[in-house]
């Protein structure tokens, strides 16, 4: 490091600069953090507190209630236990199928003799650009025609693999030296043990990316579950329930008390937030890996 006057002296400009920086940083903390606080506040206040005019920012002890969390799970009207179980199943299945299918396909494309490989890859790259919203109507017609409307397979089918995931795994597997695979073949290893014992451990960051993105994709899925399951389906997931209660609340309807709605939002956010805070490095590698290397 070179010693320089700029870094050592305290000038009015530098003090001003630092205060502006601190101010901007604090404004960001409020901007990004406040909605989360508002959700937590909303989930534990009484309905009377919601309606209070003028607004009281901090509820007093008598206006705090944890009723929502009990009611959501006990009251059959909300059947939160079932909804939470559905959401967890969808997220876990989505993650499992994506990791499995994307690794298998990526491996076959990267390391195996495959007649037709020259067609598969360009087609995959083209499908990468097809937006879900651009074909949701015809996808709905297709899956309904297959007789899978309002079923778990129908719900999982379009989410259980992605061209993006296959391409990501293909790119990572291509970087693994061919000699490693050849040596394993000579040693008599079969293809599935090469995939699971050699390739997947070597491509751990890419697997992490696929796992994080697909788990989040399953947990936070809204549009497809909303299309393919009936209203009040037994396969309802959290985002669908939260969205339909929010839609109702916009026109003054009370499908769900506002306290309950924010409590459901908290139930949806807490697991992801905990995963995010505990495994932040892993999580960020997963997210940025998805954007940068893709």
């Amino acid at each position, binding site marked *: 490091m070179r010693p320089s006057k*700029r870094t050592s002296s305290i000038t009015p400009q530098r003090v001003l600069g630092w205060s502006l920086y601190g101010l*901007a940083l604090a404004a960001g903390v409020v901007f990004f953090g406040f909605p989360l606080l508002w959700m937590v506040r909303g989930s534990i206040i009484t309905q009377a507190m919601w309606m209070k005019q*003028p*607004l009281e920012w901090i509820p007093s002890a008598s206006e705090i209630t944890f009723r929502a969390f009990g009611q959501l799970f006990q009251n059959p009207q909300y059947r939160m236990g079932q909804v939470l179980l559905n959401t967890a199943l969808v997220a876990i299945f989505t993650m499992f199928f994506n990791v499995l299918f994307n690794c298998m396909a990526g491996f076959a494309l990267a390391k195996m003799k*495959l007649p037709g490989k020259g067609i598969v890859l360009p087609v995959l790259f083209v499908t990468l650009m097809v937006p879900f*919203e651009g074909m*949701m109507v015809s*996808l709905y017609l297709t899956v309904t025609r297959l007789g899978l409307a309002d079923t778990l397979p129908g719900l999982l089918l379009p989410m259980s693999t992605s061209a993006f995931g296959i391409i990501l795994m293909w790119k990572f597997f291509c970087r693994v030296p061919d000699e490693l695979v050849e040596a394993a073949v000579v040693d008599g290893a079969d293809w599935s043990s090469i995939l699971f014992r050699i390739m997947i451990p070597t491509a751990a960051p890419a697997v992490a990316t696929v796992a994080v993105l697909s788990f989040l994709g399953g947990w936070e899925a809204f549009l497809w579950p909303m299309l393919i399951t009936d209203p009040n389906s037994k396969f309802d997931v959290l985002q669908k329930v939260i*969205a339909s209660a929010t839609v109702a609340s916009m026109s003054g309807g009370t499908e769900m008390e506002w306290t309950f709605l924010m409590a459901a939002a908290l139930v949806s*956010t807490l697991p992801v937030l905990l995963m995010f805070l505990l495994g932040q490095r892993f999580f960020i590698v997963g997210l940025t890996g998805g954007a940068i290397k893709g």
Partner: protein
Amino acid sequence: MGGLSGRRFSESATGWLFLTPGAAIIGACVLVPTLIALALSFTQCSRFLNAHFVGFDNYLQIFRDRECLSAFGNTLYYLLLYVPLNLAMSLAVAMLLNRQFPGMKIIRSIYFVPVAVSGIVAVSIFRFIFNSGATGPVNALLTSLQSAMGFDPQPVPWLWDSHWAMLTITFITLWKSTAFFSIIILAAMQDVPRDLYEAAAVDGAGLASQFAHITVPSLMPILMMVATLSIIGAFRIFEPMFVLTGGRYETQTITLKAYNSAFQTGELGLANAISFSLLIIILLATLAMNSISRRFE
């Protein structure tokens, strides 16, 4: 177990076995629906697939129907608001966070909170933050500010008014996406060599000139990627409008119009023509952005 030759013989069979689950699902859930969308876009049909061929009528309809035109207009308006703001805010946030001092880890965690909040939950929380009347915190602040300055308190109907609804929705989507994109930019920023800045400082370059001559050029590939993803995201915008306004107050976007044509009015031909146009627009936008980014490499 089979010998080496047997394994060689079965290599391509095993390869296709490995490829099949992924390829079959993408075929059934992306390729086939895309072709069906293309085919149906040239037909008139209702819910029960009683399609008959009408040529380019549905595509012409898009240009004649006021609601279709306004859906494209609304989406373009959202795009013009969202894309530049998203780029500027994500870059600004990444720059704010690109320093090291005790406590920065906690501050970063707070900034990245929106990444862990689903799009639907974000929309749901902001629905109450921007509540009409004086019960929402934004209006509470606004009205107390108005009274303090001697004006009549006038709460704004943020999500229930044609002037405000799209602006409010843009604010909400920015909250969620800037956190995500600033993580990506920040990761790229940490690869910019420190000595570039030190050398520039020794040469007497100010902060503005360092920003223009070091930060922006070295981040150009990543900024172009953020721009491309934001443009695609803006064309695809659906959830906030679907949940908050249902397309009222001049917030009906392309995707929402396609959804409504299919599931509300049962015009599957028109819905698929809109969907397929969106697909083409996104394809062209992606190709255009890719050819622009290549110039910066």
